[in-house]
């Protein structure tokens, strides 16, 4: 681009501003990878635990060991992404804050609650709802907003049920909240 000093017309100026703002707007997108990673990990863990409980296997909590693995992959992913990041957006920053708050709340609830492991699941689904709803709102990406609402509905069902079928509701929540919106986001980013 050559620098045209003081030779711009008002239309040209406006066009430059509009085109550059449009270019920058395209940078405001969220990666689908993390939604899909956690969606599938929680989906597999909850379905597997349900099957193990049905089979009367005492080691039925083992599938949840996938969670720390997911944590390590997530950290590695963000470290790599940070190195490649050429631009920081306000929306991107806000999304980081949303999911950091989500992670902190998860840690507090997982380690300091006095409920049994099943009772805590609807509370976690409510947290999913907050994270997805806010992310979808700030990204202006409706499937995530609907995913968040779906997680809240699953949480209501979860509070009503309170038995091992809660694991299936959790699987349903991540399917509708993370996996389906995750794939839609992936398709949307390719456009």
């Amino acid at each position, binding site marked *: *681009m*050559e*620098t*045209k*000093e*003081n030779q*711009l017309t*008002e*239309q*040209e*100026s*406006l066009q*430059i*501003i509009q*085109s*550059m*703002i449009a*270019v*920058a*707007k395209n*940078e405001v997108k969220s990666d689908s990878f993390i939604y899909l990673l956690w969606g599938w990990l929680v989906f597999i863990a909850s379905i597997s635990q349900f099957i193990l409980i049905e089979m009367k296997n005492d080691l039925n909590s083992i599938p949840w060991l996938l969670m720390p693995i997911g944590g390590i992959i997530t950290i590695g992913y963000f470290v790599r992404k940070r*190195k490649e990041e*050429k*631009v*920081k*957006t*306000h929306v*991107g*920053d806000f999304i980081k804050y949303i999911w950091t708050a989500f992670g902190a709340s998860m840690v507090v609830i997982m380690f300091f609650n006095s409920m049994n492991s099943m009772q805590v699941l609807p509370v976690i689904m409510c947290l999913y709802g907050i994270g997805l709803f806010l992310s979808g709102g700030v990204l202006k990406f409706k499937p995530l907003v609907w995913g968040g609402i779906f997680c809240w509905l699953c949480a209501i069902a979860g509070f009503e049920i309170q038995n091992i079928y809660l694991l299936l509701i959790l699987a349903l929540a991540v399917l509708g909240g993370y996996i389906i919106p995750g794939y839609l986001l992936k398709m949307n980013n390719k456009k």
Partner: protein
Amino acid sequence: MFKDLDPLLHSQLRLSIMSLLISVKEADFSFLKEKTKATAGNLSVQITKLSEADYIVVKKTFKDNYPQTSCIITKKGIKAFEEYVDAIKAYIKKN
């Protein structure tokens, strides 16, 4: 032609840089170069001019042992940009 238009912003490349920076929180030199399609030399000169006017802040850091330059728009820069846009709007309305 225009009167009262900020001469610092009334240039194709500097206006492009400012329009990009007003939309994001922080942008690398390589990002600005890619999006404005400017040469590194020209971009560098224009960034220095904007920085000298305190319209932007230039941060020099190291990432994996490579020097990295990133730019952030300042409050003064935002104000100047808004005034420039208002002036253009007023001009278009008049005509």
